[in-house]
């Protein structure tokens, strides 16, 4: 990236705007934090400012990612798309933009191929510059599908638990209570023509040094979206993750997408996103989009708000 000043400038510009999108997640009434900290069940992760003053618990353990980790504080919600590629216009407020036919003019645009653009336009997201009314989206998540991979890293990356076994690293995700496993037993990736598509694909990984774990994933069902703003991927996509244990308290996560059918070059959605270690007794809330509650919400709120009628006064 450093070799391309223009790209670096765009990325910096994107990073400048994204914090505004996530302001609320790091904004908390006085006194609430103390109340939340007393809880034993259904915990809520701290706001970002807590981590800057946090006691350092020492160096990173060797070849160990296990623990409960918080992506919320650093903007893991990613409602407008991956942190480095938000579907926002330069200088716009987070919720000003909607209803545009494509992503022309967004900060740090993705390198869509013609096929990628065609696929993009079929997806009707509820957020970003192409957002449509909630009642009119075709977001698979709104219809009960799992977010899939890598959307689980590019959307609602809040609290996760990583655990390691002899042959796997297992990721438990608070959002929708998803899980995925990354094989570490040395097996190669499958030929995608020999396996059935999966929402979360097929993942293998290995330690490239004592503090860095790298994983590759293929075979992701192309019915899933990459993010919350409807970016598509083909079945040919592969995803590379780098999980770097900085010290006891932090992991840096980098995620790169390679999908030549839909994108003319590889692109990185997260670059060293910091995940903060939570206490071992942190109890994740249930955060599950379920059919009955979603239908009630769509009937009571979203559908009514999208129904045609007189303009607001």
């Amino acid at each position, binding site marked *: 990236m450093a070799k391309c000043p223009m790209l670096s400038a765009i990325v910096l510009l994107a990073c400048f705007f994204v914090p*505004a*999108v*996530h*302001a*609320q*997640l790091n*904004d*908390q*009434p*006085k*006194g*609430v*934090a*103390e109340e*939340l*900290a007393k809880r034993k069940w259904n915990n*809520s*992760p*701290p*706001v970002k*400012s807590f981590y800057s003053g*946090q*006691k350092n*618990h020492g160096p990173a353990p060797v070849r160990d990612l296990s623990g409960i980790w918080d992506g919320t504080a650093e903007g893991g*919600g990613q*409602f*407008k798309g991956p942190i480095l590629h938000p579907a926002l216009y330069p200088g716009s*407020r987070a*919720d*000003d*933009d*909607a209803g545009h036919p494509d992503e022309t003019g967004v900060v740090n645009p993705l390198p869509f191929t013609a096929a990628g653009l065609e696929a993009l336009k079929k997806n009707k997201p*509820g*957020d970003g510059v192409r*957002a449509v*009314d909630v*009642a009119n*989206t075709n977001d698979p*998540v*709104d219809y009960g599908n799992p977010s899939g991979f890598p959307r689980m890293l590019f959307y*609602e990356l*809040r609290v996760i638990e990583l655990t390691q076994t002899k042959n796997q690293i297992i990721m438990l995700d608070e959002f929708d209570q998803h899980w995925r496993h990354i094989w570490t037993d040395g097996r190669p990736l499958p030929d995608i023509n020999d396996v059935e598509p999966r929402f979360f694909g097929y993942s293998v990984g290995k330690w490239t040094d004592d503090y860095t774990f790298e994983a590759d994933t293929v075979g992701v069902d192309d019915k899933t979206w990459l993010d919350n703003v409807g970016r598509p991927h083909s079945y040919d996509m592969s995803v590379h993750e780098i999980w770097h244990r900085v010290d006891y308290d932090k992991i840096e996560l980098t995620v790169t997408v390679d999908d030549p059918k839909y994108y003319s070059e590889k692109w990185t959605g997260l670059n060293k996103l910091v995940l903060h270690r*939570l*206490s071992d007794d942190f109890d994740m*809330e*249930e*955060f*599950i*989009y379920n059919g009955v*509650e979603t239908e009630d*919400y769509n009937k*009571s*709120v*979203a559908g009514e*708000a999208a129904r*045609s*009628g007189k*303009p*607001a*006064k």
Partner: protein
Amino acid sequence: MSGKVGAVVVMFVGLFAACVPLQAHHGNASFDVSKHPTVKGIVTEYVWANPHVYLKFDAKDENGQVQHWVVEASNPPDQTRQGWTKFSFKPGDEVEITMGSVARNGQPIGRFGFRGGIILNGKPFPPGAENAGDTGETVPKQ
């Protein structure tokens, strides 16, 4: 109940900077984020659910007609971080809400998100909300 229902007070507040983006899985395509009416009424239902928490209440409009308002918040984890619980509101509570945005189609539907914009039974809700963003430190559990 109607006697308790306050009049709708529409105040197009100019303090746009005080409006906090609502976190959600969707944006504001159906909502006008430049309008922040304040509406006073009586809670009829409070739903703590995914993908969104929402509050229903009755309020009289300027013609004395009861309108059934629905105001949506974010999801339960976000609201928990803001000091809300499943038991924060109950039917019969008096609320005065300054909307973060309202439905473009004129339906009595809004979204929370206006800092300090909730008065519950005469007091700011959640306690300290009017100062949100000042410090907000979470006590460590390390």
